[in-house]
């Protein structure tokens, strides 16, 4: 057993992080929030060129030929920076929908009665007939509601990639909280010196690191039950982490200008994806009686 990132994996993660910092840094994030519903096509193609979508496609088919662990690493990075767009749907369409692998096409999919980015998508997989726009809680994710769209059994890869994005959020909000707790002073000292705040931050890290182990392991085994577990842990780490991060930011965290609410909102959006939390819970419960736990 050697449950560590390889040098190549580390390089992939770092490269992705650098690309995203360059192409979707703080200013780009602000810009995206102020012009909701617009997807940056040039960025999409840049992601395509970097292999974001074709990552798991065999080299013979023009892909990068890597596996789930690598996909999880790049999706975690996407989650960290709140990268907008139907990332998982396009990734899953690589090799199936022309242009998806290279980032020429934006591919979305009907998922549990919702479609993200319908108006900007070149292709929508699934039956989106009768889709009606809703006023999305997440300013960075336009949503349509599809009537009668009952949740089918989600593809495990979709569940895992969602978990990876949640992990990115969980890690990021922990950093943001710790940064703020080190800098913000009340009662003559950094608020992080108060045990109550320190414990909030520590709790975030405990949840995100536990989720990280679960997500990475699920990426290695590809086992649907491992994936369901990873999803539950990552959802919790992201949602509670973003909430606690907001709490650590106090009144500042409740303002639109702060980045914190965007993380919480996106984390909430992801909890609705890929069968939702309930299906993952059911899968884990079923595994207990099936003797595969």
């Amino acid at each position, binding site marked *: 057993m050697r449950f560590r990132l390889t040098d190549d994996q580390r390089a992939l993660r770092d490269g992705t992080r650098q690309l995203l910092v360059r192409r979707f840094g703080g200013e780009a994030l602000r810009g995206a929030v102020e012009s909701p519903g617009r997807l940056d096509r040039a960025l999409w193609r840049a992601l395509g060129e970097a292999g974001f979508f074709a990552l798991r496609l065999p080299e013979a088919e023009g892909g990068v030929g890597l596996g789930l662990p690598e996909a999880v690493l790049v999706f975690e990075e996407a989650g960290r920076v709140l990268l907008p767009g139907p990332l998982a749907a396009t990734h899953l369409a690589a090799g199936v929908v022309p242009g998806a692998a290279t980032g020429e096409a934006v591919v979305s999919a009907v998922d549990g009665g919702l479609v993200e980015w319908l108006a900007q998508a070149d292709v929508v997989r699934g039956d989106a007939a009768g889709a009606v726009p809703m006023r999305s809680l997440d300013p960075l994710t336009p949503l349509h509601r599809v009537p009668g769209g009952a949740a089918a059994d989600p593809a495990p890869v979709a569940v895992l990639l969602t978990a990876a994005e949640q992990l990115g959020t969980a890690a990021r909000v922990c950093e943001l909280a710790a940064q703020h707790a080190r800098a913000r002073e009340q009662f003559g000292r950094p608020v992080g010196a108060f045990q109550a705040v320190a414990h909030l931050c520590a709790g975030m890290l405990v949840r995100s690191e536990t989720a990280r182990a679960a997500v990475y392991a699920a990426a290695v085994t590809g086992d649907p039950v491992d994936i369901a577990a990873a999803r539950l842990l990552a959802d919790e780490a992201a949602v509670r982490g973003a909430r606690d991060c907001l*709490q650590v930011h106090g009144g500042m965290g409740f303002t639109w200008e702060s980045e914190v609410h965007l993380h919480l909102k996106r984390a909430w959006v992801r909890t609705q994806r890929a069968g939702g939390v309930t299906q993952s819970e059911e899968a884990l419960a079923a595994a207990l009686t099936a003797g595969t736990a």
Partner: protein
Amino acid sequence: MDLSDTPEEEEFRARLREWLAKTLPGLPPKPSPDDWPGRRAYDLGWQRRLYDAGYADVHWDASPATRLIFLEETEKAGAPYVGANFVGLLHAGPTIAAEGTEEQRERWLPPILRGEEVWCQGFSEPDAGSDLAALRTRAWRDGDDYVVTGSKIWTSHAEVADWCELLVRTDPEAPRHRGITWLAMPMDAPGITVRPLRTLAGSAEFAEVFLDEVRVPAVNRVGDENDGWRVTLVTLSFERGTAFAGEVVACRRVLGELAVEARENGRWDDPALRRRLGRLNAEFRALWRLTQWNVSAAQASGSVPGAAGSVFKLRYSHARQELYDAAAEVLGADCLDLDRPWTLDRLSSLSYTIAAGTSQIQHSIIAERILGLPKGR
């Protein structure tokens, strides 16, 4: 111990119910959440109706038990909430009633009761949030006026307020808690700039308030000069202790609505969700009982709620967040739709563990003032 209505209370409840049944159908439609002037007019209009019907002072003068009946019945009937009148009715007014002079009570209380004037709370500053006593907005005496310079932040309803309960530092040399003064500042005085701040829910619910040599008549000082911290604790105990009581009933109503919605959309079949809503039912029932308990205790001792208010505030603010998380589960994918009212309520519930003193601060207050644990922080 007795939880039943006395004959007078019973009579009050019946009369109020009848009045609500007669009055509510004739109310104008609620303005949109972003229409602040509209909301101000609407909230003041509701207060005026209460005044004309003899219910205006129910938050202050009536027996606390009557007040709880009022909150219970108005919420159950779906009557408007205090809204823009929140600060005036629920903490500035009670503070002036408790600490003001006779002239001050006559000047400020009737317009609050008649629904003529809106108040806001200018306590927090950019560098003085939890550490309120670190406030730096300066005021110095010049003839019959105080001249005030500084800035406030997160001031709810500042845009539509006529008056501000303002904390200023009048003695920078004194220990932090000693040099503070509580002033009633007219919001139309020259030198005040209000800059709306957008909340994460998208609305401009609070604002930054910049004060540049604003003249506030010295007769507007409530309590003595440099004795404002004591007055502030009175205000905060109203704010934490009793101001949210009515919302508990509202939460119970929402819980009932959630069960109906869950039955309609099939989620009621999920035993985990049913049990979750059941637990919340226990939670809000208990919070209502805690309200009755605290109010009865305050009535018996003839004092304001004090640190017991922190117990309520802490528990309630978290319960409210759990309620709207459960709402999200009931709504499923629709919980991402801002046009569903519960979605906005869920977003605004995020502020409850921050505003009026964060949960961390409430824990410390409870530990130090009720449990007598050493002050450490």
